[in-house]
């Protein structure tokens, strides 16, 4: 029996995603973002998080989903991976669940239009909830961003 992990659950559109709780530093409400010129459109800019300047990414934009208006529910999830601190803008985040690692399956080839390499797996919770586990180091992979640039350029 594998161990239970705690997972922060957040939403993009109708889909639910999960990030392991130990990679999440805080969850913040929307705050003023300073635009950084000459970067990718999904990089929304930088915020002042209690004196630390942190870049913020719109996760919808990162995954190529159409960006949405920010609402009361919109949250910035601050994660720390590979010594990088980054904020993710998500539609909402309001759940923490215990997940048994056995419940996570390898991701199917196509899930909701997001490339499979961004995913660690898919977990089934209860009868009809699917939780998509994010592979944070892929999401924040800078090499891929460089590639993206040359494609756009």
């Amino acid at each position, binding site marked *: 029996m594998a161990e239970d992990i705690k997972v922060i659950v957040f939403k993009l559109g109708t889909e639910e995603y999960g990030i392991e709780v130990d990679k999440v530093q805080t969850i913040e409400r929307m705050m*003023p973002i*300073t*635009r*950084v*010129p*000459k*970067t990718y459109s999904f*990089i929304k*800019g*930088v*915020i*002042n998080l209690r*004196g*630390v*300047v*942190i*870049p913020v990414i719109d996760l919808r934009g990162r995954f190529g989903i159409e960006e949405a208006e920010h609402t009361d529910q919109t949250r910035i999830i601050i994660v720390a991976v*590979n*010594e*990088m*601190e*980054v904020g993710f803008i998500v539609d909402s985040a309001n759940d923490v669940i215990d997940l048994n690692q056995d419940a996570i399956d390898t991701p199917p080839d196509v899930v909701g239009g997001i490339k499979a390499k961004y995913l660690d797996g898919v977990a089934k919770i209860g009868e009809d909830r699917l939780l998509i586990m994010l592979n944070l180091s892929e999401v*924040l992979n*800078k090499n891929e*961003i*460089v590639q993206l640039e040359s494609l756009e350029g």
Partner: protein
Amino acid sequence: MDMNQYLSMFIDESNDHLQSLNESMMGLEANPEDLSIVQVIFRSAHTLKGMAATMGFEDLASLTHQMENVLDLVRNNKLRMQDFIFDTLFKSLDALESMVEDITGGGEGKADVSAIVASLQAIVRGEIPTAAGAAAASAAAPAAEAPVFLDEFQYSVLEQSLQEGHKVLYVDVAIRKDCQLKAVRAYMVFDLLERSGEVVKSFPSVQDIEQEKFDHSFSLYYITQKEASEIQAMILNLSEIDKVTAVALDQESLRQMGQDTVAATAEAPAPVKEAAPVSNASPASAAHAKEDAGKPAPARTGGAPSRTIRVDIERLDVLMNLFSELLIDRVRLEQLASEVQNTDLTETVEHMGRVSGDLQNIVMKLRMVPVDTVFNRFPRMVRDLAKSLDKKIDLIVTGAETELDRTVIDEIGDPLVHLLRNAVDHGVEGIQDRLAAGKSDTGTVNLRAFHSGNHVFIEIEDDGAGINPQKILQSAIKKGILSQEQASSYSDDEAIQLLFAPGFSTAEVISDVSGRGVGLDVVKSKITSLGGNVVVYSTQGKGTNFSVQLPLTLSIIAAMLVRLGTEKYAIPLSSIVETGIVKQTQIRSIHGNKMVEFRNSHIPLVSLSKIFSVPDYDESTEEETEIVVVRKGERLVALAVQDFIGQNEIVIKNLGKYLPEVQGISGATILGDGQVALIIDPNAFIK
């Protein structure tokens, strides 16, 4: 005792001692008769040895010990300092330095110093007949090599054993040359001996023997009840033993072997009894130092007790971070107070402003380090360089106490090394050339540091041949950096600055030291990246002066805040020449580039709003545009902005690891209202 907590102290102190050793040695070299300097050197070496031994760094301790032996002869007028002695001692210092470096890097400070040890021993042997020969003869020690030397503690143990009626044997064991596992054989000998007595001291040390660091034979002092012949027979019974001689010592022969050769081992509290692997086990170390054994290493050599404490730099960084938070809050409070218009509040905030201003000064000062920490390695470097180039050079250091922020100090070392090498190698002429030019045979290199305004200048000036601008121009043309016509329009001064052009070198023969011009572009870009500048002045026949300008600190800067639509940006004040307003009609278009007139010349006008695609501002719709003229070296550019907000001290923050390098942006800062403003890197707009 947990040594780890003392390790950083040990490293710091060792570096201090090494530095003072280096300095004193240089002083002694200039003044070889001054025995008081030898005393200083000796004390420093002795302290270092004691510290190293206490910390268990045996290689370090034993090498220092050998140095001490030589120094002791010198201070007792038994040996005159000569060139090769200096060289050997300097080499020893280098070896010690690399050991300490190894320890700093988490290593054990081990190094193969046998060659240096051998030459140190040779120096000791060469000048003074060692007591070894006599002792060996009287003790009838069979081997030709000298007996093992004892420190005071070991000597007294042996002496006492004799008085108590034990036998003290000097045993020499040779293992057969074809023996495969000589360490194992040696171990068996020790094992056998330990059963019927005690080994007090062996050469090589037990540790070295265990690591097979010996040549088929070893000797030891042994306390037992058995007869010498008995022991001899016992050892011979082991297989693969070639020869054993065991000689019983009496008081007299022990004294002869021991007393003259009592080694100065301040580290004696180390576990001596188990045939101590401590430092002084070497065949011919005629140690004459008679320091008190077991004396604790003094913290500092002489002088008044230091009124400073060492602080972990990380703690200072934390303090700095916290302080920048405070600074941001202060500005925010000031804004709020000016909105609220409450006198009491305003006064309190003003007071807080003054206090935090003072606090800021102090925090900044805590991070200030004298440039001496960089300069101190230069005298030695110049000495070695001059020697290898066969030149005579005086290095004159002034202003070493000038202070710079540690962040700048950390970065400035390499560029300075480069410039100094350059001055020594190419600046100062060889002795013959100097005499031919009617100068004294000794060249002078001045290394100066001084404050001026908000900057620190470091100058490296030589009185050498100077730089020939024509040669530089020719070389630049040859390398395709300039066209013939361009070159003709260059003034001499401009030509000399070409030294900093990428890929430039005027050295006809590139020596192993440096080529004049080689890598100067790297020096320049390094200094520029620190927010500094470097220029060179040269007069042919008189010399060359490299002048490096550096900012006092890198973490807090004065900046001009500007507005572009709803966005705010900060422009470092250090690169701003002036601000102004230009009318739309004054903007000209030359080859499709916008230019404005500035002091009788035309400089490019850069539209920040276009480059940064600012959504809600475009200066071309306005009649008048505010401009900020910024400078990079000699070149100027005007940046068009919407409004000036004002001048402010800002704390530089980086944009984090995730963001790719953003063109034109060098960092971010947090404004009084909590908003993040980006810091503009003016250099990026000047090509």
